[in-house]
């Protein structure tokens, strides 16, 4: 078929010129400020990215088995997916949890569930990432309590708490409390982490979800970094020194379809953040300047139609993340549009990373595409476009002000509508969906046992009956007092968790203090 004479653009609408030639691109080497080419001199020659498959379903027991399976298959880090009730701060037996328990992740209603989740897994030996936001402090407290039980000093713990509440208001919408109260809680975790968990990232400032909601690559980059700036400002207001906490701010980006645009995005991210930390904040420690990120291949790009094509999409997206210098990577499973990953599908996804790491050769040279005329120009263009957005949000008074004005939400809604229109008109091809359709064979899917909810509910009833309820009340009262005042909420939270107060009980105590947030929808 003859190609039409038209303008080519990246998926985000950035024009692609007919040819690129030598320009004036002078980038410092990998490991040198501003780290455009990578944060380490040797990158994957020294250490491969962490292969970390996001995982959780049905019950903590079944999720624990999947963790053992994935570790045995060669993944090198753990990543916990929680179910919707847990994400929203509800126990499995709450009225709003009906039908939702275990469907999108593991239900964790108490320390007991967290103990089961990590049964047989020494938390001192494997890094753990937890994708949890509005109740992140509670789940983190449970994880820290499990470490105590296992005899692992907190100073030894490696891992990441997503805990990025700003992107919830912008994109993922898993908020509980209003923005300023939530920022206070996040700052409590940053402060606590700076003191007690020097190897743990208390926040993973995320663009993945912003992208999944339909933003462009530039919006993903700009809103993420501007969220990071907001967290830094709050931590500095708390009285922390930039170099005390900035080294442990981590990031999380999407790895979407447009190969070169994604690699340019990661390179621009490192450059912008290094300049922000040095020039805007006066950071002196090199570790404060180096942006570390986890990447996940784009769930929203995977199709219901012809699901085996998704293996190809994921492989190309993963390759972009590796060529872009990610420190950690999750690859989606081919059944993404249908269900949580089956064991068969997640194994292929993990093997995709292993083939990239051990067979493709791309891990051998840091930033191997550096010097590509196209990539270098795209990196500069992406940097400039993102900086424009960052300045715009600065002028609005910061990210919280921008969120209250509906700015990032509206930008994302417009971008996602434009994208869908391009698909509808055929201007944008989605293989198997609006072009190259063919019949599908049904694939075998993971089934979530409906009994999971009953099991969790029964466990909770038994827990509430056998624990010291007087003590639980005492700890909740102390937490409430801390929340009403200015003290760091993590220590009283830990006490409540150790007393086996449930997630719902703890969040209800905090809801009582802070109230809950209702968004104004922006279509």
């Amino acid at each position, binding site marked *: 078929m003859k190609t039409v004479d038209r303008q080519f653009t990246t998926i985000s609408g950035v024009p692609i010129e007919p040819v690129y030639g030598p320009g004036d691109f002078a980038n410092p080497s990998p490991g040198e400020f501003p780290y455009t080419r990578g944060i380490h001199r040797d990158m994957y020659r020294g250490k491969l990215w962490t292969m970390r498959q996001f995982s959780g379903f049905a019950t903590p027991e079944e999720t624990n088995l999947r963790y053992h399976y994935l570790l045995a298959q060669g993944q090198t880090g753990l990543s916990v997916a929680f179910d*919707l*009730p847990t*994400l*929203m701060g*509800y126990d499995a037996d709450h009225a*709003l*949890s*009906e*039908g*939702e328990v275990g*469907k*999108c992740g593991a239900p964790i209603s108490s320390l007991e569930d967290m103990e089961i989740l990590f049964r047989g897994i020494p938390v001192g030996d494997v890094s753990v990432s937890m994708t949890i936001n509005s109740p992140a402090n509670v789940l983190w407290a449970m994880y820290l309590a499990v470490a105590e039980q296992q005899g692992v000093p907190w100073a030894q713990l490696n891992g990441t708490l997503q805990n990025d509440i700003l992107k919830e208001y912008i994109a*993922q*919408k*898993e908020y509980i409390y209003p923005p300023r109260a939530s920022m206070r809680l996040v700052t409590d975790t940053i402060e606590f982490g700076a003191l007690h968990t020097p190897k743990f990232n208390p926040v993973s400032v995320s663009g993945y979800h912003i992208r*999944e*909601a*339909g933003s462009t690559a530039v919006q993903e980059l700009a809103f993420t970094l501007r969220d990071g700036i907001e967290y830094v400002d709050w931590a500095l207001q708390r009285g922390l020194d930039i170099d005390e906490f900035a080294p442990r701010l981590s990031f999380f980006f999407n790895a979407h379809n447009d190969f070169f645009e994604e690699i340019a995005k990661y390179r621009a991210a490192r450059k912008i953040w290094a300049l922000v930390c040095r020039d805007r904040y006066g950071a002196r420690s090199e570790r404060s300047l180096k942006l570390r990120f986890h990447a996940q291949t784009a769930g*929203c790009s995977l*199709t*219901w*139609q012809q699901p085996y094509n998704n293996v190809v999409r994921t492989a190309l997206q993963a390759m972009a993340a590796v060529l872009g210098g990610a420190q950690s990577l999750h690859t989606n499973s081919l059944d993404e*549009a*249908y*269900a949580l990953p089956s064991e068969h599908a997640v194994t292929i996804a993990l093997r995709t990373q292993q083939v990239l790491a051990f067979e493709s050769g791309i891990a051998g040279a840091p930033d191997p595409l550096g010097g590509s005329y196209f990539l270098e120009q795209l990196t500069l263009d992406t940097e400039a476009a993102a900086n424009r957005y960052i300045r715009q949000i600065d002028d609005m008074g910061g990210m919280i002000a921008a969120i209250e004005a509906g700015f990032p939400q509206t930008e994302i*809604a417009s971008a*996602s*509508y434009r994208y*869908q229109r391009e*698909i*509808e008109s055929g201007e944008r091809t*989605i293989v198997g*969906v*609006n072009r190259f359709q063919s019949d599908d064979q*049904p694939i075998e*899917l993971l089934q*979530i046992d409906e009994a999971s909810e009953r099991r969790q509910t029964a466990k909770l009833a038994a827990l509430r009956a056998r624990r010291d309820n007087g003590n639980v009340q005492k700890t909740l009262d102390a937490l409430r007092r801390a929340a009403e005042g200015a003290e760091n909420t993590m220590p009283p939270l830990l006490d409540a968790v150790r007393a086996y107060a449930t997630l719902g009980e703890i969040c209800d105590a905090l809801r009582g203090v802070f109230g809950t947030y*209702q*968004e104004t*929808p*922006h*279509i």
Partner: protein
Amino acid sequence: MAKPGLDGHDRGAKVIARALRDAGMEVIYTGLRQTPEMIVNAALQEDVQVIGLSILSGAHNAIVPRVLELLRAKEMTDVMLIVGGIVPDEDAAALKSQGVAAVFQPGASLEAIIAFIKGAVPVG
């Protein structure tokens, strides 16, 4: 257009709401985390002809029958119920047999959704 249950993924619901508006329909978007009761009450108050439920969380088998039950209880069975989201084929068939007019799975086109509604609902 409603988001029932705890699911906060609203990209699809918002895109469709906007497309339906552009196609000349009056659309009320309820926002997130609506219970079946809240949705049916809003539909009654706004006197809608169609309710669209967007569910990606896997909770459709608990939520949709509850909405159908409430519509029957309030004698609103002339209101058409359509569902969109992550609903496997067997569940889609079951929901249709219970009274759901259509189930739109991932990849469904805006054109198809608009055409279905226009075809099924009298104008004016």
